[in-house]
């Protein structure tokens, strides 16, 4: 119910700031991506047309970064969402100290990405790191968590997972709490085990939320930046490992723009990331529609 009051003036502060500092830069980067612009003379833009984009197509480092972004994203998102689902299911029981569990599990999210990365970098360090020490105790050889392709990606993915499990658990928990208790009681009477209840009531009940978190995590993973930058730090960090084995797209954007001073080329990379994200969103929307249709037909 809307009352006829002129409301637009209440929107202006937001809209004005948003257009200047949010929308305009995003759109303008489309133009910058068609120019050659140097970091130290940022007001001299030389129009070069599609040159940056044709350069991208032949840039092995770009494709390497794209591959890394996809594999790192996969390694970070899939375990993260599965664990979060399990944890949310645990939190959904009637618990003693329920606030304590929720806050404790959410605490990693309050830790900054930079801080978490430095902590984990130390835990994963080559010779005397805590993780390798632990592996030694159970009789396994130490792993080179820095130079290895997969081992370094797994280590970085674990940082992402650690930070985000709690957040996603709470989102799932909120969704689970809106499932009617009657369903569980009925299942209980039918003698369904808790595992069966989880699979047949809980998971279907929160399916849209699962899809939502998957899409949001994918968008986040496309922009992984701080973890790879600080994992080894210094110049190694900027290029994403000694052999670029974990350089992500956003890291490559940063390197091109702010280490090599190629603002035009960096903008072209930014627009490519944007295209990827739009693609991911389209797939997410498509899946949502498809799952609704299937349920409607059933």
């Amino acid at each position, binding site marked *: 119910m809307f009352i006829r009051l002129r409301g637009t003036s209440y929107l202006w502060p937001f809209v004005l700031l948003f257009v200047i500092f949010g929308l305009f830069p995003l759109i303008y980067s489309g133009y910058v991506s068609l120019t050659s612009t140097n970091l130290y003379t940022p007001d001299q833009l030389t129009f070069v047309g599609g040159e940056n984009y044709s350069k991208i197509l032949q840039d092995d480092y770009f494709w390497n970064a794209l591959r890394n972004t996809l594999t790192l994203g996969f390694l970070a998102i899939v375990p993260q969402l599965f664990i979060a689902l399990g944890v949310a299911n645990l939190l959904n029981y009637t618990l003693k100290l329920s606030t304590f569990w929720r806050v404790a599990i959410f605490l990693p999210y309050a830790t900054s990405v930079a801080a978490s990365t430095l902590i984990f970098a130390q835990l994963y360090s080559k010779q005397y790191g805590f993780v390798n020490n632990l592996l030694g105790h159970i009789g396994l050889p130490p792993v080179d968590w820095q130079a290895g392709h997969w081992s370094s990606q797994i280590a970085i993915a674990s940082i992402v997972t650690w930070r985000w499990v709690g957040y996603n658990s709470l989102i799932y928990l909120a969704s689970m709490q809106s499932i009617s208790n009657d369903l569980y009681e009925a299942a209980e009477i039918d003698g369904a085990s808790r595992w069966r209840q989880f699979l047949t009531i809980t998971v279907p009940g929160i399916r849209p939320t699962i899809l939502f978190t998957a899409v949001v995590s994918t968008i986040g993973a496309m922009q992984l930046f701080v973890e790879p930058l600080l994992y080894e730090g210094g110049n190694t960090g900027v290029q994403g490992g000694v052999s670029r084995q974990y350089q992500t797209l956003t890291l490559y954007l940063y390197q091109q723009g702010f280490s090599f001073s190629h*603002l035009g080329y960096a903008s072209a990379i930014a627009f490519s990331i944007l295209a990827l994200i739009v693609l991911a969103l389209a797939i997410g929307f498509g899946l949502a529609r498809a799952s609704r249709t299937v349920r409607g037909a059933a």
Partner: protein
Amino acid sequence: MTVTHLQRPSTVAGTPAKPTGRPRRTTGRHGGPMVYTLLTITVVLSLFPLYWIFVAASRTNAELNSTTPPLFPGARLFGNIQAATEQAAIGRALVISLVVSLAVALGAVVTSTLAGFALSHLHIRGQRLWMAGIVATMMVPLQLGVIPLFIVMARLDLVGNPIAVILPYLASAFCVFFMRQYLVTAMPGELLEAGRVDGASTRRIFWSIVFPIARPGMAVLAMLTFMTSWNEFFWPIVVLNGDNPTTQVAISQLGQGYVHDQSVILAGTLLCTVPVIVVFAALGRQIVGGILQGAVKS
């Protein structure tokens, strides 16, 4: 895509959140020993890295690099902190971060409460279009506009100035969405109508009806925004330098710089992380409650 809406806040954030208003699980949904065991494991994994900063920050580098890493805090905490503050301007960074995060939290909450009020209860031409636009921009990563934003800041002569990391965050689509959902559910339209009948102006209605009702939502949003702002990395590292760092810039300087003493790096990290963790631990119940209320529902 999921349709998102806030649940009507069952408790006012700020008062102890009793689980009233939710169906209590009565039969067979109490957590058993297995549930508590799994939760304990999760909490240990969540908290161990945070505990580890303490251990690492209070030891010498040599102790940290011994063949069996220490498990308990040592005596070097203050020495390491002192060394860290000599390597990076951490004291200055803490002050800058505090000012920046407070300004961002305040500004974003004000702009989004005004806009949220307009979008929830006032008549606006193209209402649906506005909401669609806001949801869409929540998904699109505005940090991809980082290069034009840098050009803008360079023209305004704000590179290296903390104001540059305040301005872009004063308008947030997420915050507007949050406040709009909050006001839709927390404020009945009749209340506004009553005010209107009494001949109150929109401004008066805002101050004497909307504002008191919105306050709990504003408080949760302010805490979340403060935390996000404190932990922001990408834009600050691009636009700021060592003279005016935020905490995250200072951490990354420690991590990327010439300091090879792990315990000093982690002491600095600890110093920059503790404020947020303390705020969070103290207000965790409200923040988690806010997230559970504002979470995406199917």
